[in-house]
């Protein structure tokens, strides 16, 4: 049976030995998968995306620092509003995703390939809207309702961190991992999201007496930026080794 099928795979009219001359359709499908994987690997520019995200995260720190409205009360308690972060990230997010899409397409074109950035751009656009919308919703709610006396539940903090820019960066990296079929990026993103959502206090800072409020907010951002930067270097080194 296989031999009969194999006869069909003799090149018709011209010689062609670029794919292994096996008649087995299973082998042909496997070869097609290999070619697809090679193309996807050649389209990858993971390190560039991570580098842009790291740069945007570092650039946000002074905006948050100087744009933060802090009011300390005589009883020692302080209220703060991170307006600078809002004003920075709303224009920074679309610019950041546009820059990544542009660099991806340019690199792919230089390698003789097209790029698939549309789903990524759509996700970038959606996440850009989610952050200010969530901020607006929370601000509007608490302007009409009293702030609760009891500590807010843990899930609230996780949700709050997810809709913040650093959580949205994680969601976008998930989409990028799916687009690139990039298991290494997926593993990194899962670790990144765990760090941002469960470990680092992105929304209330390190509230130790050692830190001022501004510094307490800057440290988690600095950690996220360093993690993204190190990942960018790691993916670049891995990409160079592969080539």
């Amino acid at each position: 049976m296989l031999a009969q099928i194999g006869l069909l795979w003799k090149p018709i009219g011209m010689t062609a030995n670029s794919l292994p001359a096996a008649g087995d359709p299973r082998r042909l499908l496997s070869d097609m998968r290999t070619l697809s994987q090679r193309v996807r690997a050649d389209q990858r520019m993971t390190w560039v995306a991570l580098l842009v995200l790291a740069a945007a995260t570092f650039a946000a720190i002074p905006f948050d620092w100087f744009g933060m409205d802090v009011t300390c009360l005589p009883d020692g308690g302080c209220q703060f509003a991170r307006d600078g972060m809002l004003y920075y990230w709303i224009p920074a997010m679309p610019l950041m995703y546009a820059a990544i899409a542009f660099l991806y397409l340019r690199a792919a074109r230089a390698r003789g390939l097209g790029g698939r950035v549309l789903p990524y751009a759509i996700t970038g656009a959606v996440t850009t809207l989610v952050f200010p919308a969530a901020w607006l919703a929370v601000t509007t709610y608490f302007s009409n309702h009293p702030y609760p006396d009891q500590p807010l539940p843990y899930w609230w903090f996780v949700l709050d961190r997810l809709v913040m820019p650093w959580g949205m960066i994680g969601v976008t990296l998930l989409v990028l991992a799916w687009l690139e079929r990039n298991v290494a990026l997926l593993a990194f993103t899962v670790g990144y999201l765990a760090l941002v959502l469960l470990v680092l206090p992105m929304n209330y800072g390190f509230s130790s007496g050692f830190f001022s409020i501004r510094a307490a907010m800057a440290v988690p951002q600095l950690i996220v930026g360093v993690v993204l930067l190190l990942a960018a270097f790691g993916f670049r080194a891995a990409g160079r080794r592969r080539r």
Partner: protein
Amino acid sequence: MTAVTGAEEPELAHPVTGLDEVVHQRVRLGILTITHEARRVEFGYLRSQLELTAGNLSKHLSVLEEAGLIGVEKGYEGRRGRTWITLTPAGVTALNEEIGRLKQLIARVETTDG
């Protein structure tokens, strides 16, 4: 499109009877696969990936273009001429059908062996 048929026609249509001669060829299948994955691919990339001579690749591209499965766009980047290949909707359909038939063949072989 031409169908490649076996010596004997079985009563039920065998997946082989539906194979398209234009697509069912290793190099052309490789071209369609790469182009589908890349959305748009340059002649030089195809040549290096499929390890073909320029003349041989051109012949295969002509066959696919005449069948309406790919589009060929020639242009310049600086002084350098570049040829870009894209898959037409018919090309996408033909590739998907070919993959489907190959899977049917595998299922047929496994059933026969079992």
